[in-house]
């Protein structure tokens, strides 16, 4: 898949997928945990769409401050100012407008963020443990 690079940087990690996310109120910056208990620390966070309070930019910075930042953030729709400001402050690679991200990527899938906004997902097939594919 291909998106628009907002904050540059290569990254690779396991996906954590969230449909709609407000960093302020829905992510604990001190632990990297979402309200449902999943951790985004060291993961590739895949969001359908951002939402919520502008304090979220500080929350994203907090993740970096407490050492719990995701390795990259991918957004299926448009990133909002809160997310952009937070990602720049925290130095987290950010790619948005990745059409179809939520249909393709599942929790736990290995994901790579490459130059030019390329997002590569490694899907497990039922017959072999790991099949590499670029969508």
């Amino acid at each position, binding site marked *: 898949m291909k998106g628009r690079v907002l904050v540059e940087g290569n990254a690779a990690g396991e996906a954590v997928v969230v449909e709609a996310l407000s960093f302020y109120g829905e992510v604990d910056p001190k632990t990297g945990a979402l309200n449902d208990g999943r951790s985004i620390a060291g993961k590739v966070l895949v969001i359908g769409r951002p939402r919520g309070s502008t304090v979220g930019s500080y929350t994203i910075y907090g993740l970096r401050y407490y050492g719990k930042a995701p390795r990259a953030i991918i957004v299926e729709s448009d990133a909002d100012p*809160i997310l952009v400001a937070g990602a*720049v402050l925290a130095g987290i690679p950010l790619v948005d407008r990745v059409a179809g991200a939520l249909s393709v990527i599942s929790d736990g899938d290995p994901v790579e963020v490459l130059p030019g906004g390329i997002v590569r997902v490694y899907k497990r097939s039922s017959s072999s443990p790991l099949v590499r594919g670029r969508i």
Partner: protein
Amino acid sequence: MYLTREEEKILAGEMGEARAEALKIIVKVGEALGAERLVPIAHAHVSGISYGTIGDHGASLLEDLASRGARVAVPTTVNPVGYDTEDPSLLEKAGVRITPEFVRGQSRILSALRRMGANLTLTCTPYYIPEVRGIPVGSSVAWGESNAILYANSVLGLRTNREGGPLALMAALTGRTYYWGMHLDQERVPQTLYHVEEGILDEARAGVLGEIIATSHRNRKPPLVDARLRDEIALREFLAALGAAGSLAMAHIQGVTPEKPPEKPEERIMISAQDLEERLDKYRPTETLDVVFIGCPHAKAGDVERLARLLQGASRVRTRIVVTLSRREYSRLLASNPRVIGELSGMGVVIARDTCLIVSPFGKPGTRVATNSYKALFYLSKRGVKVSLAPLEDLARIAVSGV
């Protein structure tokens, strides 16, 4: 994005690395939104500075910027903080406990902002400050704090988007923001007229009108509003409610907004007095209360004087009243009516500067609050507080005699 030669130099670090980082944020946000260029600003207002909101990580970010030489390039004011800086224990009578840790964290934030050159006004009503009233109509600014943004665009004819979080500070450090949204003439022209059929609206009815419009408005342009708002507090509460219940940055209010409205709006929506009464009825105070809260947005000296007149004759209030206001209005009140503060305090009214019940750690779930502010109702409800809404005259009566 097109950048001037000076902007390129700033981005390259020629005016310091902190300024370069700040401009990078503004440019990246602008590019994400499709802005073609930047616009110089006359003023900035920074929200989100309570320690309860941004914590140690927020304090560290601000300290880091200050230490790297970040300094504001334009006059900059700031929002309220977690307590009255002259007496952090003032809100204890409303059940708010400020720990030494909180004071330490808040002081770190305020020191950093002071070092960066911000004017620590500690109020959500920067639109009442003389230096702001002097800014020419049509000027661009970068403000956080939704109620202030609406007031700036709708009443003062200034131009700002909703620059919350660290955005307004980044704009302040660079003297610029992205040229998008409310800075553009065509984004400020309404398409839909909301005509309120009859009646003169007090601040509680103005608040529910704001809720109704914010939640039903469907296009990106500011709503055009034809309503009779009783007084300044009704205007303020209408705008605050619009800001809280939706994502609007501006309302075009007939008779108030300096710009000329379109002659024939594309769409007309009628709102009846009954619509407002039905909505207000849902929020009516019906049970014993713990706190009556006035001052969201911050009260003016005149509002406090009006409260004193309404409470005249009572020796004590049965329900704790908390009034929050800016230190500037507090000083004006002391100067014009020195006895009022003492009289109200003697009756059991708590008057606090620099803070409010939203940005202080107020509100154990189940606490019962009545207020004249829809915005306060909206935010306090989210933390499990049971909030009801009524105009000031009703609140005064309830505080003395019960519901």
